[in-house]
């Protein structure tokens, strides 16, 4: 609108006067340079540059890496994870690890890693990572934690193997900070000589009456006295007596998860009372419901990156891993299909996406996939 018209509007002069006064006394935003980033980084830094300050051998198959920044670390809620980015044998990749130290410990984050058969990153962390080494991680992430508004004060924690780590953080926080919550921990392991944190848990449960520790061993040794077998509906019912008024948290490798979830659901526990975290992508993906019968896991397909190169990938492996092996950088966090960080657009070809991948409706409509949980079934073209 032309100034000579504007000038005729009632009140124009008053607005101009306001502007003049404010320009004289107002705020000079140039002193704010860099502050937005600082505010965000205090809580949600895009990445952290950490150092391994200590390594604690836990069991024959697991060790704890203590990570510190030398200064400030952003707070987290017990149960959250960090994603590590590593360069292993020339491949830039990474994995998510729950923080096992409690949030009240502000000087470092502990992660506790258990060996996974033929695991690329876990083997590296167990065999090669050494004190003094620097590791780039994400800030604390994830939605697997006690939610005071949604959850009950009695927590039933069901862990399998390395799935103990978020619970360790929760339990340590509860006992160290004197939080008024009751915990039943069901902890499944294959053998009784490889139970991470067993001594500490035994000690805590004998000291604190609100912490109940129930180990369950699949193949117990001869003089083992506790519960044997799997964590079943029966075991839960017997130990808990009353099932309602409690929130259930399930965490562990996909096989344990696939077994325990139906057990809990079978008890008639409503969906909203069950929280879960699945550790990584399942082994033997072709056994999953919905996998097309004609496709073998070792099938090799090609993936054309729009406007770029063509790489090869194998059907039984998440697309993200193949991309990384070929030096293609795709951001990631959870690597279990939930967070959407690794989202890429599928221009042609088919992928298998297991149930539980949290895809937006509009992403599905426009062919986006979460590459960490998408298995190429045929030749693909994608847009990063």
């Amino acid at each position, binding site marked *: *609108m032309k100034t000579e*018209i*504007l000038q*005729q*509007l*009632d*009140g*124009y002069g*008053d*607005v*101009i006067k*306001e*502007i003049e006064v*404010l*320009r004289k006394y*107002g*705020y*000079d*935003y*140039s002193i*704010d*340079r*860099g*502050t*937005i980033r600082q*505010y*965000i980084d*205090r*809580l*949600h830094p895009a990445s952290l540059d950490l150092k391994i300050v200590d390594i604690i051998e836990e069991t024959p198959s697991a060790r704890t890496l203590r990570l510190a920044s030398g200064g400030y670390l*952003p*707070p987290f*809620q017990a149960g959250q994870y960090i994603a590590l980015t590593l360069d292993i044998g020339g491949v830039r990749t990474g994995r998510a690890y729950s923080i096992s130290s409690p949030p009240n410990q*502000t000087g470092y984050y502990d992660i506790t890693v258990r060996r996974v058969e033929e695991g690329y990153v876990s083997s590296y962390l167990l065999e090669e990572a050494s004190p003094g080494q620097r590791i780039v991680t994400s800030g604390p992430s994830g*939605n697997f934690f006690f*939610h*005071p*508004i*949604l959850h009950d004060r009695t927590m039933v924690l069901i862990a399998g193997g390395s799935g103990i780590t978020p619970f360790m953080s929760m339990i340590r926080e509860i006992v160290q900070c004197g939080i008024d919550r009751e915990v039943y921990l069901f902890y499944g392991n294959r053998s009784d000589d490889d139970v991470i944190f067993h001594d500490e848990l035994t000690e805590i449960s004998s000291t604190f009456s609100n912490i109940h520790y129930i180990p369950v061993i699949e193949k117990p040794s001869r003089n083992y006295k506790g519960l044997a077998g799997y964590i079943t509906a029966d075991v839960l019912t017997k130990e808990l007596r009353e099932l309602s008024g409690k929130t259930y948290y399930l965490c562990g490798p996909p096989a344990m998860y696939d077994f325990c979830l139906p057990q809990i659901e079978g008890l008639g526990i*409503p*969906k*909203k009372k069950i929280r879960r975290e699945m550790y990584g992508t399942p082994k033997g993906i072709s056994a999953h419901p919905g996998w097309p019968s004609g496709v073998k896991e070792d099938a090799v397909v090609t993936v054309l990156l729009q406007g770029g190169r063509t790489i090869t990938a194998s059907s039984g492996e998440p697309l993200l891993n193949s991309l990384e092996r070929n030096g293609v950088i795709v*951001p990631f966090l959870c690597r279990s299909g*939930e967070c*959407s*960080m690794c*989202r890429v657009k599928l221009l042609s070809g088919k992928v298998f996406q297991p149930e539980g991948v*949290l*895809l*937006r*409706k*509009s*992403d599905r*409509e*426009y062919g*986006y996939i979460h590459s960490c949980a998408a298995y190429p079934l045929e030749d693909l073209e994608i*847009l990063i």
Partner: protein
Amino acid sequence: MTDYDVIVIGAGNAGLTAATSLALKGTRVILLERHNIPGGCATSFCRGRFEFEVSLHQLSGLGTAKSPGPLRATLNSLGVLDKLHFVEMRDLYRVIMPGRLDVTLRANRNEAVQELQKKFPAEKEAIASFFDFVYKFFQEVIGAFYLNDPEISRQKYPLFFQYALADSQSILDKYFQDPLLKLALSVYWTYMGVPPRHLPFSDLAALLFAYIEFRPFHMKGGSQMLSNTLLDQLLRHGGTARFNCAVERILVKDGAVRGVKTEQGDEITARCVLSNASPIATYIEMMDRDEVPEPLITQMRSSTVGTSFFTIYMGFDCDPSELGITETTNFICATTDSDRDYTESKRLECDESSFIISCYDVSDPDFSPPGTCQAALVTMKYAEPWLRLPPSQYASVKYRCAEQLLARSEEVFPGLWGHLEEMEIATPITHMRYLGHPGGGPYGFDQYAKDSTMFVSPKPPIVGLYGAGAWYGSAGYQPTLMSGASAARAILKELKA
């Protein structure tokens, strides 16, 4: 030869429509977005079985095929109108002040007037003449301002000349006595971010007129569907987009832009750069002080960073009817004193804040999985107190504020708390993180009369540099979507010249 004709910084509503318009005209355009997904505010995220809508409550200005609003033409010219499925809302809103007021206004002038007359019989005539006034005034605004009548004069547009810069409170006071009635007609002020005492009456009139005449809408798949559809259209027409690619520097030489440098260190050259990031980020973060013309810094001195929000995204294990939610949009007010209410938005605590509950499933039963529904509870909150909070207290304060609001919702919708299955809480800091805006402001600067495009040009005095979106004009879906398209027209002109 430059790498591109135009670089667009930010894939919010304005960035998306600008880039898409340019691509449709055969311009070589690249869109750079810091986040991994397009949309800015216009996005969604998943928790459990729910996909939470982040920001779209009521889309304005769309209208129907028979009686089209201005946004319809914009979306049509972008070639996306037919690809989206819109859901019309029956009501403007329900306003509730527990124990004192409960009235639902239909998105229909006569019905709204009658309903108000029934509730406020003593002010029957005033209600009718207020609506007459809003309509007459706004029709003049359309002719004089939006259609830019070349023969504009005070004789032709008397109401426009008299009231274009008037505030809303003085008009409400002129027509009405009962504070509850004034409240019922002015609750939309939170959609603009400043209270009626400061809200230009032209904005309040625009809201009432546009939402009644063109109806409030939502869309299937939520606002992320809009963002994905616009991006798809951009890519189909030869445009390029990069995500996880924040612009760190705008390259300027001799008072003209040359291109940008990304956080990965890539330099991309272009004749024009359009920023959908805030002016503070654009002129202060992305340029050096000596590259920025002094008038820009001076101009910003007269503006204040606008409000952000505290939002609870809620997924319920039942239908809306079981919660007693019968309308999509519910304003739940704590007081009739809007100045007091506004002051509350500068406080951390939410125990006395007014708020909105929008339950999308009321209008679109497919919005959430069968047997469930979702709602967003939103209250205006400035970032300042959140920035002063020690990080270690952030999570617990979030929960405390959410509890305060949920307790107040229980008064209106008893049993709501018990049906919660999933929830996520967003604060001004959350908005800051995902948008990169100062103060986490999805509305840009506070929108006083002095901040309108009548007084502040969205075009910075640097050759080839443009701005579009909430920070460069009005906030909201319709204005930002349209501002991108109009910035694209200005850029095309410059490219041709």
